[in-house]
């Protein structure tokens, strides 16, 4: 009886034998997995360390500074003052004016960039002649340093000097003309970026679908709104999100064009002035934190609108 074990036991023995080799296999797999994990963590470590040290730590530090009276001109007078800096900034008309200016520039430029970016994307996508030429030249504004472009526009609108300057008036010394020139500079520079993102979307629209719609009598306008736009909506939203957040930090163009004169300062300009001209770290940090929070809110609204199409929503995933 004992020499011939019942089938169940035999199976168990076999299983145990299997288990032995399986164990080794599993251990090997585990080791491989652990090695892969280790390598993965090792490879991302430098990048993550730098990003955390230079972005995450300073923002926490900025939050701490914003709760203090920190004036570089009077280092001995530093003290913890709670949210007093926030009260100062949020009750300051300078801050709210800059906030309004920034919002206006952001919304108007994002809108214009979307319209002209879409037009340029369609041209780059559809043109039957000189495609390489168009794509190359469209990249030029993208590559030009913002400061260079801003100088070009400033000189163009400077009285007596510029080819665009109207006789006997100085547009860059008045509020509204300045605002439109700032928007012009921003829009000129970033249309290509918008157009490239949209063009990547356009490439995904099936040609057959457009042809079929054309056969069914839909004109170009209808095909655009009823087929192309719904299909490239994710690309539109991504492009808009990138550009909105980018436009909200507008600094270079304003600094060169008006230096913030005549109430054209953006929030970044005001924060910069507080730091460099005022040397007031407490107030400057408070503004930094407020700008950071606003950016977060804008991103949050967009990501709510994106839903699943949000970049990063499918992190490990395919392209």
């Amino acid at each position, binding site marked *: 009886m004992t020499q011939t074990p019942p089938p169940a036991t035999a199976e168990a023995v076999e299983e145990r034998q299997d288990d032995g080799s399986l164990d080794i296999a599993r251990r090997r797999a585990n080791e491989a997995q652990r090695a892969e*994990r280790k*390598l*993965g*963590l090792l*490879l*991302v470590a*430098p*990048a*993550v360390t*730098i*990003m955390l040290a*230079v*972005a*995450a730590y300073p*923002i926490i*530090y*900025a939050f701490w500074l914003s709760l203090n009276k920190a004036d570089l001109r009077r280092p001995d007078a530093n003290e913890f003052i709670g949210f007093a800096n926030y009260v100062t900034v949020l009750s300051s008309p300078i801050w709210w004016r800059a906030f309004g200016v920034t919002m206006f520039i952001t919304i108007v430029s994002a809108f214009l960039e979307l319209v002209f970016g879409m037009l340029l994307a369609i*041209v780059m996508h559809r043109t*039957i*002649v000189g495609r390489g030429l168009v794509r*190359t*030249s*469209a990249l*030029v*504004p993208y*590559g*030009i*340093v913002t*400061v*260079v*472009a801003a*100088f*070009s526009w400033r*000189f*163009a609108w400077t009285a*007596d*000097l*510029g*080819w665009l300057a109207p006789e006997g008036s100085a547009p860059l010394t008045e509020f509204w003309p300045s605002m439109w020139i700032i928007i012009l500079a921003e829009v*000129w520079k970033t249309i*290509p*970026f918008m157009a*490239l993102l949209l063009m990547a979307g356009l490439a995904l629209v099936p040609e057959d679908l457009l042809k079929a719609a054309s056969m069914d009598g839909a004109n170009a306008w209808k095909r655009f709104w009823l087929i192309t736009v719904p299909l490239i909506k*994710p690309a539109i*939203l*991504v492009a808009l999100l*990138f550009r909105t957040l980018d436009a909200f930090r507008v600094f*270079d163009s304003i600094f060169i064009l008006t230096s913030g004169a005549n109430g054209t300062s953006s929030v*970044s300009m005001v924060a*910069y002035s507080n*730091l460099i001209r005022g040397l007031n770290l407490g107030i400057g940090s408070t503004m930094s934190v407020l*700008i*950071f929070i606003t*950016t977060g809110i804008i991103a949050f609204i967009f990501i709510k609108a994106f839903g699943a199409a949000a*970049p*990063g929503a499918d*992190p*490990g995933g*395919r*392209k």
Partner: protein
Amino acid sequence: MQTETTQRKLMWWGVNVLVLLYAFIPVIWILSLSLKDATTLNDGRYLPVSPTGDSYAAIFSNADFLRALFNSIGICLIATLIAIVFGTMAAYAIARLTFPGKASIVAVSLLISMFPQIALVTPLFKILVTIGLFDTWLGLIIPYVTFALPLAIYTLSAFFREIPWDLEKAAKMDGATPYQAFRQVITPLAMPGIFTTAILVFISCWNDFLFALSLTSTSAARTVPAAMSYFTGATTFEKPTGPIAAAAVVITIPIVIFVLLFQRRIVAGLTSGAVKG
């Protein structure tokens, strides 16, 4: 039929000309300003009447400008190199390996790419002053690398996903360690993507103004965009329009060369990295 295609071609050429005008009018204007001589500088004409190289002679004999040009090139090259090395490592891991925390790394880098730089300027200013890196090359390289890394990681991981997996597996089967597979099989295949990303990263560093303006105080580390805003004429009343325009043209030339040579790659890089949805 023949005429119809001709007409369509003509129409598209017309549209193309509009695009060319859009892209080049401000660029040619700054070029023409840089070539105007002192007497015709203020004539308000779009093109120079009697072009001269005086403004170029002026900036190339200006020590501050030369120093700024040297700073710009050095700082941007070093920052690009560091960002590419670390970015390549991280992007490879994100595209190919399974490890904990991957999702949050992607999220964090996305967050940083959208970060308002000004929010970092105040604390970084204080930190750099404290540790003695204010107004040094390293003081600018550090924030440049930080903002270049998300761009590098995004673009590179998109490129890496398109490299055939099997080659790496084959290398491992032949006895290569994961590191060897990375170094000897994947890296050469990935070079075009890495190169494209390097151009994009370099352009973004080259373009920076805010950090260069706030984190420097002398010509020791000031880059050209920041130096341009400090240009002064020979006298307080003379506006240095010509030299500024010449400096603008000088820092535009490398970018225009990149764009002309690598148009296709830059387009591929910008679209693959940025559009994931």
